[in-house]
């Protein structure tokens, strides 16, 4: 596999190969989730009916959902449906799983994307500043504030943001999602910022450490000896090399962003897939869990693919 940086044809086959590789991963995850969730104590009917459930009702409802059959049979039944595009109906919400996911997943996607973007906007310039002004006050101040960002739990930062910027200053609405795209950007800004806090702290630390490593490299001296503009030296030579290890970290951390999204969506009342996930777990809503897991597995794999392509573009030495 010669390096994909230059040619376009290899890029296409590389992407195709990675997508084919995704299939076993998604299937593996689906099987594990399918079984794991059914091993969880409690079943959908008792989770829904709660303490009032009478055994007769529980048996009747579980039977109507086909849950009385052995797990392998249920799985075959499920696979048969998946091929016909039917992911089943949500036990609690009584809506087709595809409709719910179509409603809720884009919300979380938008939230995590905004958070990732904000994290980059926060982390890159400040990492640069901290690296250039190493061991001086600016460096200490930047690292100190990010250290606070790294230690504040998401729900606390969220409530603080809402109290200050929402209720008191009224710059932003207090939670909610909004209808038009612009309205949603406006509503999702605070939750995205909250989510971006600890994410940007991790990025900044890593980027600062690699910039310091790169800034003393001889090719940077050579670039300066060539009389290039400082801005070009910093971006094309320093940043591009420093980003290599940070991109790996970025790809890995995206997965954890979703974990943070669950709590952020609860605090900011955002109707996202994070909350749907936790409600489905507590409600033992198997069909929704299965559908959501597939969707998430595909999405996170795609983000991995994107970060890998970006990394290969960034660093041609590491031929794939």
């Amino acid at each position, binding site marked *: 596999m010669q390096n994909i940086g230059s040619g376009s044809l290899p890029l296409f086959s590389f992407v195709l190969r990675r997508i084919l590789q995704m299939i076993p991963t998604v299937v593996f995850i689906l099987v594990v989730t399918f079984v794991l969730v059914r091993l969880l104590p409690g079943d959908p009917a008792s*989770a829904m009916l*709660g*303490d009032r459930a009478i055994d007769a009702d529980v048996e009747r409802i579980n039977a109507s959902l086909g849950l009385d059959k052995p797990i392998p049979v249920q799985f075959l039944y499920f696979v048969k449906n998946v091929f016909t595009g039917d992911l089943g109906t949500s036990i609690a919400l*009584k809506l087709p799983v595809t409709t719910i996911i179509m409603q809720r997943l884009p919300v979380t996607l938008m939230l995590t994307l905004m958070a990732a973007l904000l994290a980059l906007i926060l982390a890159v310039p400040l990492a640069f500043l901290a690296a250039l002004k190493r061991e001086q006050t600016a460096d200490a101040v930047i690292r100190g504030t990010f250290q606070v960002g790294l230690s504040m739990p998401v729900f606390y930062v969220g409530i603080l943001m809402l109290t200050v910027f929402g209720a008191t200053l009224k710059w932003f609405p207090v939670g909610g999602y909004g209808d038009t795209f612009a309205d949603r950007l406006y509503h999702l800004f605070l939750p995205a910022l909250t989510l971006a806090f600890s994410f940007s702290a991790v990025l900044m630390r890593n980027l600062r450490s690699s910039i310091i490593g790169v800034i003393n490299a001889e090719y940077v001296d050579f670039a300066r000896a060539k009389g290039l503009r400082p801005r070009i030296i910093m971006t094309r030579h320093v940043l591009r090399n420093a980003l290599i290890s940070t991109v790996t970290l970025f790809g890995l951390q995206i997965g954890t962003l979703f974990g943070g999204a669950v709590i952020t969506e609860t605090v900011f009342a955002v109707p996202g897939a994070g909350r749907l996930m936790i409600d489905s777990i507590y409600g033992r809503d198997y069909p929704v869990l299965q559908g959501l897991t597939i969707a998430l597995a595909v999405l996170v794999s795609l983000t991995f693919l994107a970060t890998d392509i970006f990394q290969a573009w960034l660093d041609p030495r590491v031929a794939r």
Partner: protein
Amino acid sequence: MKKIAKAALAAVLLVGTSLSAVAVERGGVMTYGRYADSLFLDPVLNDANVDIWILSNLYDTLLLPTDDGKGVQAGLATEWKVSDDGMSVNLTLRDGIQFSDGSPITPADVAWSLKRAANKDNGIWNFLVSSIDDVTTEGDKTVVLKLKHPDPAILAALTVFNTAILPQKVFEAAAGATDADKAKVFAEHPVSSGPFVLQSWDRGSTMKLVRNEHYWGKGEDGKPLPYLDGVTFEVLPDDATRILKLNSGEIDGAEFIPYSRVEELKSAGNLNMELFPSTRVQYVTMNARPQIKGKDNPLSNPKVRQAMNYAVNKDAIIAIVTHGVGKPLTSYMSSATPMHTGDKPLYAYDIEKAKSLMKEAGFEKGFDTSILVLAGNQDEIGIATALQQMWAELGIKLELQQVDNATRTQQYRDGVFTMREAAWTDDIADPNEITSYFVYSPTIDALHTGWKNEEADKLFDASQKEIDATKRAAQYARIQEIYNAEGPIVPLYETPYPVALSKKVHGFLQIPLGNNFFGRAWLDK
């Protein structure tokens, strides 16, 4: 005489008022912050409070609960009479009542709706109307219920959400083979008989209801109810966020205010901190079986249970967990439940008596035990932490096990739990529901604890058929006497529904059963 005086007083008020709230203002949309979204708005097939508590705004029942939640008043039916032998009920429908699509509400709709509610295969609420044998119609205004046996709670049952009246023709026309499938299709564009009708519903975020132009109810100004143009529910799961949104004026009301914030909001200038009386009781359930999973269970000894009850300082827990909003329980059922008896708190705190009881039971040095707590629930954690401290004085080492709801329900239904925290709200203005779950062993072995009392079981059977109110009251008094003395629970406290409303909101009501009524609510401009 009393009536005339009241009229005079009203007149004076009217004349003398400048800003008083008597003059009702119409129009506007009220936004209400809820802690969770509804799941399935079908009266018969729903299964959670998040649905039950707003269904009354969409669907009307033949009879309506009185504001104090104990009695009944006219709804879609204007007259109702239970036959002397108690075997049948005659109801006369109100004139000119229509569904939200303008079609008339006919006796056929009522009969079909009630039979659907009583059908054993539909949902989990049919036990409330299990006494109904058949429903027939006479003429264009009368409906007759034939009962299998006299049912003292039948009138109360006719106010419960599951007996709400649906349009038979529209429902039957919905696509789908089974009743459940038709219900799903119907629920997407429901035709309602209540003050509002569903306009739009974004799951997990916003639900919009609008006025039902054809609603029969009349307001104080003689014009049709509801006063509001519509009600918008916003789902705000986090308590702090819900209150913040209320404070910033983005919503007009918020439910389930945490007890810790009640005091603070009482003093807030722009809000009314309402504490609506409720049938909600908080208690701990103890497994009374001699052995659990093969190990001996000290809790099976009534003396141990009584000792643990005496060792619990209810006032301390009320102060810590409810910040003084709660009241100690005087019986296993809430004081707002009809036929509640008992005036002094159960098991007043007496640590010495507790220790002597433990010695008598042979557990002087105490024992290790555990309690199931709902993961992340602040109130339950608070209670368990307090119990841990209090029972430590009896040498009992209590381990907290935070698990999610489904896990706890599983162990609970299998009867393999040791102890668990729980709360209960009535669904019917009658003590039979709570008693069948708490006391009557055939239903669920008395809260799955394996506790049984012959006399209590017999009394309950009799009460289910006893038409004479005073005799029935006496039966319940005895049942409460038995259960409160040796029942397998640690009664803790009962609390009202803490709802914070903006000063602009008037006429909103949450009855003790939990149902939220927006029909008579209105907003200052």
